[in-house]
Each structure stands twice: as structure tokens, then as C-alpha cells.
């Protein structure tokens, strides 16, 4: 009775070499994605942390939050982005970092859509003055691409944890 699982285990071990190769490539690609996303968020966060006055004004442009909340977020969000990005690089509180970054992207995307629907002419301030003249589709495409990348990392990490627990 006990030998059957043992045989199956050995069979799966035989198939491992080819899997190990593709798994290795996949891991390297995911690690590269970690660094690319971290670079994007550190760059975006640093630009906003340098000029919180401008970022507070950018948040206020959405006309969703009262001014004092915009100011508080202008001081807080850039550092949250930077710490989460460092979390991706050093794999520190990794899932939490991915969750926070994904949630922030979703919120900003919804706010951008809401602003567009309400006819507001907004500058998102995501990348300081560099993103000032981005069109609405460019905004959406960038946000969606980042969100897809973040979710890929999130599910790949969850999958890896799932395999380890088996």
C-alpha cells in the first residue's frame, strides 16, 4: 500500500530535469520583473517625495478627497511606494508589498477613470512632470501593464508557496 505513492514520487523525479530548466528561466524572469517594477516605483516615489507640494496638488485635482487628506497622502504615499518597491527587491514582506502596490494602482486607475468621466482635466503626477502630458489611454495602458505585472508576481509567488507546502 505504501509503495504506490513512493513509485509515483520517483516517476515525478525522473521528469524533473526538463522542468527544472524551464522553472529556472521562469524564476529569473520573475526576478527581473521584480527589479523592473521596483525601479518604476522607486523612481515614481522619489519624484513625488521630492515635491510633496506638487503631489498634494495632483491628488487634489481628482476632486475626490478634502485638501488635508490630499496633503497627508502626498507625504505618505511616495514613501509607501518606495518601501514596497524595496520589499520587492529584498523579498521582505513580499506579498504585502505586492498587495499594497496592486491596490494603489487599482485605486489610481479608478480615480483616473472617474475624473475622466466627470470631465476633469487632471495630471496624475504619477511620474512628476514627465507624465503631465500623457493622454488618458496612455495612463490607462501604463497602469494596466503595471497591474498585470504585479498580479503575475503575486500569483507566481502564491503558486510557489503552494508547491512548497505539498
Amino acid at each position: 500500500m505504501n509503495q504506490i505513492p513512493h513509485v509515483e514520487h520517483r516517476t515525478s523525479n525522473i521528469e524533473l530535469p526538463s522542468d527544472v530548466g524551464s522553472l529556472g528561466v521562469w524564476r529569473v524572469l520573475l526576478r527581473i520583473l521584480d527589479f523592473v517594477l521596483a525601479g518604476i516605483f522607486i523612481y515614481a516615489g522619489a519624484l513625488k517625495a521630492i515635491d510633496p507640494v506638487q503631489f498634494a496638488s495632483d491628488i487634489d485635482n481628482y476632486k475626490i478627497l478634502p485638501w488635508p487628506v490630499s496633503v497627508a497622502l502626498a507625504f505618505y504615499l511616495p514613501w509607501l511606494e518606495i518601501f514596497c518597491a524595496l520589499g520587492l527587491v529584498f523579498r521582505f514582506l513580499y506579498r504585502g508589498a505586492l498587495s499594497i502596490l496592486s491596490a494603489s494602482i487599482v485605486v489610481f486607475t479608478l480615480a483616473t477613470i472617474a475624473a475622466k468621466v466627470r470631465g476633469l482635466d487632471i495630471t496624475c503626477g504619477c511620474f512628476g512632470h514627465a507624465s503631465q502630458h500623457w493622454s488618458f489611454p496612455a495612463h490607462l495602458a501604463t497602469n494596466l501593464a503595471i497591474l498585470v505585472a504585479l498580479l503575475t508576481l503575486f500569483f507566481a509567488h502564491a503558486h510557489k508557496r503552494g508547491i512548497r507546502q505539498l
Partner: protein
Amino acid sequence: MAALALLPAAGEAIYFRDKISWRSAISPSEMVTVEQARGWGDTAIWVDARPDDEFASDHVPGAISLNEDRWNELLPQFLAVWAPGKKIIVYCSSLSCNASREVAHRLRKEAQISDVFVLEGGWEAWLKKNR
């Protein structure tokens, strides 16, 4: 992670305490009403921060167009008219628009002009008082 970010954020809030008001997007000292602006007469330059088409359809008499869409092109034209000691009154379409605040911010930051004021209520307020 969320708690960690609070520390530099708090530090930055203390560092920038004199540069940003928690009460209003524009500090009261940077705002001007239509009556006050009118009282300044020729010592002030009116700057229209609205898009070109809105400026073309109507504007405050003597106002100069300076919007963010054509900032690099329009700024030299504005600087040619500006003289030290003159007050700048920037306006956009209404109370809810942000263009005047943005242009005023950039004039202070990029052109290093200090006497820049934002017209309270913008073009709508000016229209109400003048027509």
C-alpha cells in the same frame, strides 16, 4: 510596510511645514479677489491660464495667455511684458479649476517671480463683477 512609511512621511511633513498649508490648497496670502485685483490697476498683469480656445473666445482685457499646454512657447512672451515690482494675477475658468494654481506655482518656481496671485473664482467671478 505601511507603518514603516509613516516615519519618513512624518519627517517630511515637519520639513515642509512652512511650504504647504493643511487648511487650503492655496494659502490666503496667495489669493486675490476681483475687487482687490481691480484696485491694483496698472501695477498688475493679468495672466489667463485657460486653454487657447477659451482665451481666444474671451478674456480679461489686457490679459496675457500663459497655459501649461504651450508653456515653453508662451513663457518668453509673458516675460517680455513682465517687469520687477509688477503683481501677477493668474486666473482660470472657475473656482474648481486648477490651471491658475499650476501656472502660479510654476511662475514662482521656474521663473522665480514672487508676486504671483490666484484670482478667487477665476474667469466666472470676473464675469459676474464686470458684466
